[in-house]
C-alpha cells in the first residue's frame, strides 16, 4: 500500500503521458497515437468535471459566508440562487437551449458580462491620463510610441497625418515584434525546462509532496 501512495506512481503517470505526447508528435505509430488521443480525451473529461467541482466549491464558500453572517453573505446567496437557476433552466429540454435558459442568458448574463467589460473604457481613459506622464526619458519614449499605436488603430490617425499609422505599423512590425519574439522564445525555453522537471519528478508540488 505504501508503494501506491509513493510519489513514483504520480511520476510514472506524468512521465508516460508526457512521453506519449512528445513521441506521437514526432513519430506516427498508430497504437501510441490512439493512446495519446485517449489521454487527451481523459484530460477533457477531467476538465468538464472541474466545472462541477467549481460549483461545489462556490456553494461551500457561500455556505460559510452565511454561517459567519458576513456582510457579503446576501451576495453569496444571490450567486448560488442564480447559479441554480441557470443549471435548472439549462436542464430543461432541449438541453441548454430552452426559452427560459435563453431568456436568462440574454437578459442577465450577457448584459452584465458586457457591462463589466465595457466599464474598462472609463478606467483605461482615467488610467492613461494619470499614468502616461513623461517623468523620465524612458517614460517619454513609451508615451510617444503609445501615441503612435493609438493612432494606428483609430481611423482618425490617418486623417490627422497619414504618416501616423505608417510609423505605428513600423513600430509594430519591427521593434515590437523583436521584443515579442524574444519574450516568446524565453517563455518556450522556460516551459521546456519546467516540463522536463515535471516529467522527471523534480517538481515536488506536482507530485503531491
Amino acid at each position: 500500500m505504501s508503494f501506491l501512495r509513493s510519489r513514483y506512481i504520480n511520476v510514472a503517470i506524468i512521465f508516460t503521458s508526457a512521453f506519449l505526447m512528445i513521441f506521437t508528435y514526432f513519430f506516427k505509430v498508430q497504437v501510441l497515437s490512439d493512446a495519446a488521443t485517449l489521454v487527451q480525451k481523459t484530460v477533457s473529461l477531467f476538465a468538464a468535471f472541474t466545472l462541477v467541482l467549481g460549483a461545489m466549491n462556490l456553494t461551500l464558500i457561500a455556505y460559510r459566508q452565511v454561517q459567519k453572517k458576513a456582510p457579503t453573505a446576501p451576495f453569496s446567496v444571490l450567486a448560488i440562487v442564480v447559479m441554480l437557476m441557470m443549471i435548472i433552466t439549462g436542464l430543461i429540454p432541449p438541453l441548454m437551449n430552452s426559452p427560459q435558459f435563453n431568456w436568462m442568458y440574454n437578459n442577465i448574463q450577457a448584459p452584465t458580462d458586457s457591462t463589466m467589460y465595457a466599464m474598462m473604457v472609463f478606467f483605461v481613459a482615467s488610467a492613461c491620463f494619470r499614468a502616461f506622464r513623461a517623468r523620465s526619458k524612458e517614460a517619454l519614449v513609451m508615451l510617444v510610441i503609445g501615441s503612435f499605436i493609438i493612432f494606428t488603430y483609430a481611423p482618425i490617425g490617418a486623417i490627422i497625418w497619414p504618416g501616423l499609422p505608417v510609423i505605428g505599423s513600423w513600430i509594430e512590425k519591427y521593434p515590437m515584434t523583436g521584443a515579442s519574439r524574444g519574450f516568446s522564445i524565453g517563455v518556450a525555453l522556460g516551459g521546456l525546462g519546467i516540463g522536463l522537471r515535471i516529467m522527471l519528478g523534480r517538481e515536488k508540488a506536482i507530485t503531491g509532496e
Partner: protein
Amino acid sequence: MNENKGIFDKIENMNVRIIYILIIICIAIPIIRPVGLPIQISESTMSVYDFIEKLPEGSVVLVGFETGAAGWPELGPQLNIFMQHIFDKNLKPIIVSGNVDGAQLAEMYTIPQMNKPGKVYGKDWVNLGYIAGGESGIAAFASSITSITPRDYFNTPVENLEMMKDIKSAADFKLAIVCSWGTPGHSDYLRQYTTNFGVPLIVGAQTTTVPGLVPYYQSKQVVGYTSGLRGAGEYEVLTHHPGYAVASLDAASSYHLVVFVLIVIGNLAMVAKRFTTKKEVT
C-alpha cells in the same frame, strides 16, 4: 505664481468624474450622428480576405467562437463578418468553442443575423458545441472529431449530420478561424491544427493580443489577422456588408482622440507646474 501652480495642480489631478463625462459625450455624439471616417484596409486584414476568397466552394472551415459575452463587443463583429463571408462564398463552417458559452453565442447572436438563403443546418453548417479541456480537448478533437464531440450543440449524433460524413479529423479542414479572448487562443489552435495538421489559421484578435500575434503572421504561420473592432470594420468594408463595426469606429476614433488630448493636457500641466516651482525657488 502660486495661483498658476494651483491651476496646474488641479489639472494634473483632474476629478475622475470630468474624465468619465467627457468619455460619455465623445462616444455618444458619433453614435448619434456618425461622421463616416474613411477606413484604411490593413495588410493583415487583406491577407485574411484574399485567403477566404481563394478557397474553393464547399471547403470546410473550422470557426472557433472562443469568447464569452464579455468579449463579444470586440470579437462578435469579427465572428459575424467572417461567418457572413464564409456563407457568401458557399464554404461550410463547423462551429466549436472551448469557452462554455461560445457555441451558445453563435446560435444567439451570429446565425440569426446571417444572410444565408437556401442554407440548411447539418448540410451547410454545423455547431459542435463546447469542447472541454482547453488545449488537450482541442488536440483530441483535431485527431478524431467524434471522439470528443459525438453529438452536436442540438444533441444530434454527429454521424447523422450530412456535412460531417467525410469529416473525420482536422486534416479535412481547409482553414481554421479563431476569435479568442484568452484560453484556448491562437497559440493553442496554431499548435494543434496548423503545426500538427497543416491547417491554415486566421485569427480575429483582441487589439491587446496583437503584439503576441504579429511574429506568427510575419513567419507566415498565421495567414492573416484582424485586430479588434477596427479589423472587423475593415472586413465589413471589404465584404460590402457595412454594419456594427463600421458604425462603431467613429466612436472609437473620438474616444482615442480624447484620451490622447487628456494625456497631452496632463503632461503640459506637469511641465508647467515644474517650471513655476523652479522659478519660485530661484
